[in-house]
């Protein structure tokens, strides 16, 4: 394995490609997402997305889209110019419940994770049960991310990436 610090910066692009692929899948193939996570009712882009352009003529450009009903046109325009998604806020629905969290491409760090509401902890005796429940609920979001990343990296390291995924994403970006 490569030195961790070297690997972190050298493979930053991989995390950004992952988030860009998630956005593409959300817009174009919810059925495939449901195959990856059979308990998924819906996965949506939430109220914030950060895009960066590192590899093209507009290198260094950062675009932040935010707001509950933010239009994604500017995001697609940034992709058109060679940008990638660096950070994304996601809303995950399963059954009647909803999870919200932000995911950062370069680190895969999960932040601002809000899980479905649970009962109030009113005594010390209830703490243990509350922790078990919280771990279970967090695991739904973490598990989703890990399964999505598992699917992405399998695609990314195989021939299907160049032959199928990249052309499909190209068409999606170009059609915007």
């Amino acid at each position, binding site marked *: 394995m490569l030195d961790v610090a070297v*690997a972190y910066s050298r493979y930053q692009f991989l995390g950004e490609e992952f988030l860009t692929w998630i956005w593409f899948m959300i817009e174009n193939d919810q059925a495939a997402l449901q195959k990856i996570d059979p308990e998924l009712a819906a996965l949506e882009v939430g109220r914030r997305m950060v895009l960066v352009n590192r590899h093209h003529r507009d290198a260094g450009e950062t675009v932040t889209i935010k707001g509950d009903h933010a239009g994604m046109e500017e995001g697609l325009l940034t992709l058109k110019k060679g940008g990638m998604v660096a950070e994304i806020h996601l809303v995950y629905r399963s059954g009647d419940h909803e999870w919200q969290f932000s995911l950062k491409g370069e680190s895969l760090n999960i932040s*601002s994770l809000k899980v479905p509401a649970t009962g109030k902890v009113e005594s010390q005796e209830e703490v243990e049960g509350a922790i078990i429940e919280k771990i279970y609920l*967090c695991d739904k979001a973490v598990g989703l991310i890990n399964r999505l990343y*598992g699917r992405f990296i399998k695609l990314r390291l195989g021939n299907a990436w160049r032959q199928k995924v990249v052309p499909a994403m*190209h068409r999606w970006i170009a059609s915007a």
Partner: protein
Amino acid sequence: MGILSTSVSITQYRVEGRLADPVMETVRAALNKHAVDDIDNEASEQVIGWTPLENPFAPNFDSADIIIDTTFVFSLRIDKKSIPTKVVQKHFDLEMKRRLKESKRDFLARAEKQEIRDRVVNVLSTRIPATPNVYDLTWDYEAGQLWFFTNLKSANEALESLFKQSFKLSLVRLFPYTAAECSQDLSGPEKDNLNQLKPTVFME
């Protein structure tokens, strides 16, 4: 931050290696050995150690619950004293003037000034209480999976260092490269491809 907070952040780790049996006793002994110390009346500016999740300000693991269901649950505590710069400057200034008067000199050498500054910080440190920051973690020992409930860089670095020191096990932070490298679903050739990857250009 707390696992029971309304909104949480998670940094994922893979834990490499096995502990000596019985695991429960090994973990408890390591936690007790590296439990956080109280520095409120000491000159130390910072201390890092383990503390029980349910009782973070009484760091004693002898009777603390450290396992819930099948997962170890405890916290990292970082206590830090922040002395305002202006307070240091005020006491440094007073002490410097006193030294000049006593020695009947017009100036002090650089080394003397540094010595005064260090002493001022030391004295102030014994008078200022440390601010505690508690970060929870869950460790599924059998799965080799650890979640640290913060993304803060300094806290993650402190965790990695203290964990290795306490348990003699390596923590691998899971980011895009390491998550792929640690994946059991990828074949050898696929992992070889990982090392050759170049960024994709979607739009020429």
